[in-house]
């Protein structure tokens, strides 16, 4: 295999890994503050992508044609809308079930995911068909020897890295981050220290869902196509990534996200059988990893949670 093709695959894997990481980080955040898994996360991503698309179509129809402005509007609307959706979900579906068995939260968010998915399919105009997503980033490419670096991919990758670093700073360097970490560590102590538990939970859900919105728009920009079912697979992959890495740890989510992308890429490239089996391969490895390391690669310090 020549170097150009190899680096193309690596770039492809990195892009996938970045999207998975954005989803996985959301799972980790929610798990951190509430010890719950929000299975509708992937579908929030879908709704985010569709919100972005609708914004684009709406703005185009009123005559806005400047690409940077459109991109900005798409991102801002998608992020704000999903942050609001995330808060609504937390307030009305997740928090009321705090005292119920964990299974109920899991089921209610699973079913909510189905509701979101089906709503997009049924109520978005022709939502059952894949939708073309506009190319809002410059698509020029830089030739580095045999390797073709597309500018839009580079921008997305850089944005993704910036977001993760920003999140890390937010969690580690700000008062809000301190509050989130305090709630994650011990809810009751955090309350006695005067932290508004409900507010922190809502904010965390807003942040996580906003990340999903970014992931959704990024997915649309990368594939130039979105469909109503994309969130299910991305959600499961993001969740697998978060778990492989170790729930509750941001680094674990990043590790898991890129690991899963690497598995898929290896499955597509290096395995002797058809590349159609890449997902089969990736999920087989996930199940095997769960059997080997049930708490993930980066283990929690207190592992009562498994």
């Amino acid at each position, binding site marked *: 295999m020549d170097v150009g093709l190899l680096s193309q695959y690596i770039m492809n894997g990195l892009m996938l890994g970045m999207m998975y990481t954005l989803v996985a980080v959301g799972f980790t955040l929610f798990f951190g503050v509430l010890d719950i*898994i929000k299975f509708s996360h992937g579908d929030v991503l879908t709704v985010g992508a569709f919100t972005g698309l609708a914004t684009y179509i709406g703005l185009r129809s009123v005559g806005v044609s400047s690409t940077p402005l459109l991109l900005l509007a798409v991102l801002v609307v998608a992020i704000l809308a999903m942050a609001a959706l995330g808060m609504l979900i937390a307030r009305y579906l997740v928090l009321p079930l705090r005292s119920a068995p964990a299974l109920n939260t899991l*089921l*209610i968010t699973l079913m909510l995911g189905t509701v979101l998915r089906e709503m997009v399919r049924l109520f978005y105009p022709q939502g059952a068909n894949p939708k073309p997503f506009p190319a809002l980033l410059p698509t020029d490419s830089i030739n580095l020897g045999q390797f073709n670096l597309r500018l839009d991919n580079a921008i997305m990758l850089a944005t993704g890295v910036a977001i993760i670093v920003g999140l890390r700073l937010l969690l580690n360097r700000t008062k809000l981050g301190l509050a989130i970490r305090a709630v994650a560590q011990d809810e009751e102590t955090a309350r006695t220290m005067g932290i508004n538990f409900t507010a922190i939970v809502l904010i965390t859900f807003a942040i996580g869902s906003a990340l999903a919105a970014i992931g959704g728009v990024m997915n649309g920009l990368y594939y130039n196509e979105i469909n109503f079912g994309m969130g299910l697979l991305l959600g499961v992959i993001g*969740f*697998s990534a978060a778990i492989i890495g170790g729930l509750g740890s941001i680094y674990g989510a990043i590790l898991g996200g890129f690991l899963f992308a690497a598995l898929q890429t290896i499955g597509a490239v290096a395995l002797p059988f058809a590349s159609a089996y890449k*997902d089969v391969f990736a999920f087989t490895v996930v*199940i095997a990893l769960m059997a080997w390391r*049930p708490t993930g690669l980066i283990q929690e310090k207190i592992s009562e949670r*498994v």
Partner: protein
Amino acid sequence: MSGSERMPEVKQEPQAPLLPGVVAVALSTAYLIALLAVEKQPLVIGLLAFGIVAVLAAHYMDWLDPVSRSFAEREGMLSAYAILAACVVAAFFHDNHFVLLLFVTVLLYAVATLGLNIEFGYAGVLNFAGASFFGIGAYTSAVLNTYTAVPHLLVLLIGGTLAALIGSLLLLPVLRTRGHYAALVTIAFALLLKTFLEVNDVLGGPQGMQVKGMSILGWSFNDNFEIGKIEMSFYLNYFVISMLLLCGTFVLVRRLERSWIGLNLDAIRLDETAASCFGLDIARWKITAFVLGNFVIGLAGALFGMVGGFVAPNNYTFADSLIMVSILLLGGIGNPWGVVVATFIVVVLPEKLQTIQEYRFLLYALIVIVVLLFRPEGLLPRPVRRYFPGGRA
């Protein structure tokens, strides 16, 4: 003499009367026949509204209490009546292919969900890949009926065994994990299996495969037959065998629940730590429940493949697994009667109300959310364990 006077008399409450249960079964049967017979949409909607109002009214008039008591205490007798009722419905529609197919679908889904109930409801082992194991059964009968001459009853058993075997590949991760993590394992498996079926050319790829109908000892299940002068739909054959399967499974689940095995499973679900402190082997019972549950699901799937005559990956998706879970939750986790009632609601409703056919996944998901928020124990909550059949709890 005086001693016996001072002894507090053990008050033997009379056994609950049979009548309320029988009346309930008879009324439901009549209602079901009416619902299945009407075709015009306004009539269907009217009947459904009537049904909901009637049940609510009965609830507020406290008429449901005696019914549930008589079901709890005279279960054996009333089960016989319920079987009779099912046969009456089938006999009423003896020449109607569509209704009988629907009825058989309900029965087999009920069997599969009963299997899921063993895992989910008793042992607390999460399984979000119910439809996948159902699909394994169906594909088994597709392959075996096409390429081999294995007797078809044996094919059913092989379908169940294969589902249990493939399921046991998941045992290690499922046993080592709990809660969310175990859920992930089964969800990953559901997606994996569907993708696998889609890309595998031997199994027909996305188009799926035809399945030959069942035949036992030369009696072909896919031919119409006559009793006397009356023409019978061939689905009546499948009705009989599905009904047998459902009865068998129901008895099995009921016995299991009442036995010490069921007690162990309950203990493990409610508190694993406490159960293992009392010397219960957690892994052993979880394995038992998972393997047995998947066997039952696969068995139902194998028969369903032959009934439908066709298998395709799109029929066994994660969404279908969620429907099975919805049935379980709607009926009331752990209550086999609830499973049967809920299966009727979930399977029959979209078929009769064509307007909601398209919206069914959305509708069920919403219903489950509402159930979880407001009545988490389901429509027919599981009653308190009874140690002595017919006795007081």
